């Protein structure tokens, strides 16, 4: 370029043209410098960008691998955690079952203890009442006989007075008792004696019911009559349903079953009590027993009460579940009953319709090996 400038300077041309040429050379010189600069800068920048991007890609690949490894590790840990979670859940379920069983057992033990105490008390009371009521029952007939004898004597004396005309000795005929009055008096005495007799029989039935219900044999398996258990329980509950609930019984001739009689009576007491309480005002309770499949007995207790709402039907056998007011129910009756029937290898199921009533069906094997 410098040589070109010298050449232009040396040219014998117009000064203005020479100046223009030199200016053009200057512009060309700058343009060449710019192109040269751009070329070199582009080469260097390209290398720099390539280096940085390659390193970035390398780093990203490295991080990607690390992430993959971490991901795998996390997945493995997740599998282990899932396994541990399942194990814990299984253990938890087992523990819950054990806990529920423990609670039920505890409640049953408490209830059994209570029932045992109540049974002892009831048995004692029944025994103590039994002797005097026997005296009453046993003495009614001799008393009646004596009274008949006494009536005979009185008739004899009246006939003698009449025949011998001894009325004046007794203050005149009008002073002597009228024959009709005597007949009425003896009739009243007879009614009273019959009432005493019936009372004694009724008392004896109650005592029998108490003794039967409070069997002191909960811990020993025995053959027991379910029908008798039902009768005893109804006797004991009589005051809570008389005059408003009609009990319709259909108790078939069924064999005695192997059971803990006290516990089965407890179940019958719970179900019949619930049936009575389910009926507000008047209603009916149908109680039936029957032999099923030759080796089972089925007890059905149906009431015409309020029924159990569907939303709580699955909860009624849960411990502490109750629809009764606070303090009026423990929520343990059905739970304990369920446990007792299960323990007897039986089943208990419920059918219910709101506003129509509920039916509890218990099935118990006749023979079993209970410890």
């Amino acid at each position: 370029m410098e040589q070109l400038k010298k050449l232009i300077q040396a040219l014998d041309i117009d000064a203005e043209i020479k100046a223009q040429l030199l200016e053009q050379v200057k512009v060309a010189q700058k343009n060449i410098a710019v192109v040269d600069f751009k070329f070199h800068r582009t080469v260097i920048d390209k290398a720099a960008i390539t280096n940085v991007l390659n390193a970035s890609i390398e780093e990203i690949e490295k991080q990607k691998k690390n992430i993959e490894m971490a991901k795998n590790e996390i997945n493995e840990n997740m599998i282990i955690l899932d396994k541990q979670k399942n194990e814990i859940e299984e253990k938890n379920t087992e523990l819950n079952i054990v806990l529920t069983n423990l609670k039920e057992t505890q409640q049953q033990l408490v209830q059994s203890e209570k029932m045992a105490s109540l049974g002892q008390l009831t048995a004692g009371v029944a025994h103590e009442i039994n002797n005097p009521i026997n005296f009453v029952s046993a003495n009614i007939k001799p008393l009646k006989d004596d009274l008949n004898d006494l009536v005979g004597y009185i008739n004899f004396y009246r006939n003698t007075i009449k025949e011998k005309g001894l009325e004046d000795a007794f203050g005149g005929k009008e002073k002597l008792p009228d024959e009709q009055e005597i007949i009425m008096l003896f009739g009243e005495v007879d009614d009273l004696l019959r009432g005493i007799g019936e009372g004694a029989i009724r008392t004896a039935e109650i005592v029998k019911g108490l003794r039967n219900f409070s069997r002191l044999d909960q811990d020993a398996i025995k053959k027991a009559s379910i029908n008798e258990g039902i009768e005893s329980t109804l006797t004991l509950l009589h005051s809570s349903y008389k005059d408003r609930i009609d009990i319709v019984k259909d108790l078939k001739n069924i064999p005695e079953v192997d059971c803990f009689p006290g516990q089965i009576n407890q179940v019958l007491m719970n179900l019949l009590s619930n049936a009575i309480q389910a009926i507000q005002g008047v209603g009916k309770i149908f109680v039936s027993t029957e032999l099923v499949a030759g080796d089972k007995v089925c007890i059905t207790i149906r009431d015409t009460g309020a029924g159990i709402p569907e939303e709580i039907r699955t909860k009624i056998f849960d411990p502490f579940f109750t629809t009764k007011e606070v303090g009026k129910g423990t929520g343990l009756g059905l739970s304990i009953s369920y446990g007792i029937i299960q323990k007897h290898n039986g089943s208990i199921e419920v059918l219910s319709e709101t506003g129509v009533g509920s039916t509890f069906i218990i099935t118990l094997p006749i023979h079993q090996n209970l410890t």
Partner: protein
Amino acid sequence: MKAKNIYGETVDEIKSKYADATIDGFAPTLAIVFSSITQDRKPLANFFDEQKIDVFGSTTAGEILDDEVMENNTVIMLLDIKKAHYKIFCEASDDTYKVASDMAKFAKATFNDPSIVVVSSGLTIDAEQIIKGVQEFDKSIPLFGGLAADDLTMKGSFVFSNNYESATGLIGLILDNEKINVKGLATSGWDNIGIEKTITKSVGNVVYSIDDEPAVDVFVKYFQFTESVDNTAEIIAQNFAQYPLQLTKENGNTVLRAPLMVDIESRALIFAGGIPQGSKVKFSVQPGFDLIEKTTERVRVLKEGIPEADAMIMFSCKARHMALGPMTGDEAGMIRGIWNKPLIGFFTYGEIGTAKGNTCDFHNETCSMVILEEK
């Protein structure tokens, strides 16, 4: 306000050009003097002092005058601004924050509504402390400026005034906003590239390790294209300064930090601004060759605030000079063409200004423009 630009390689040449400039009765009160480290500054300052002209001066890494880029020269903008409309503040201290705070106090004590154009040493001063000192006193004071340079010798850069020169101090040109319309903008154009890296060890502006690798080794791995970097600071600057680190500061500002020097023994890089340890950074690459047009368009926005400027000051990073090469003058020329008024500037070791969407901050790789108009 009228502005005239002159330049020269010797004091005598400058005196001669000064005489030419004032022959028409032009009576300047202020001289903005940007001078190569090779120039004799003292007799020049004395000459202006004799003329009762205040000097606001800084050494450079290349000078800009209108659309010309020069080296080993002195460029001067003569302004006939009324002395009541500006003040010069000079002070040197090891405590840059205090000096900056004193400057802000002086500015507010002098004018109700001041702006500050500041130049300071580029090698010994933490420029972020200048900004902190001013902003913590009064964040409403507009602040612009650049760090003095020394032609990449990295031996010492100076700021100077009539009877003052310092390698550790600063000079503030305090302008009365009620009389002088002052607007400014810092614009970069560098693009970040690659994945984020972490500054794993740093103290102030010295970065020892990046992602636990010695900082020098990281830059050598990516950006060494010439001879060994173990010898001269100039090589370091030429190789690495064009690939600054970009970081987002706690105040939300995104700034670039260019490496200026290397500590071979510790394999550390000394940057033209602080990079806190733990910072997340990315490398940046030089912008495309359309940078000049982009910068011009960004600066043109200032024309809305100042339609008719009297003078322009450009603080342009030395790395831009290296990135634009022979086209650097074109950038100055196009920006000058927005107002078509005298433009003076120099290539710096760091710029102070406000980038679009940011608050005032210390930058590298930017062009920080200041536009002046006497009301």
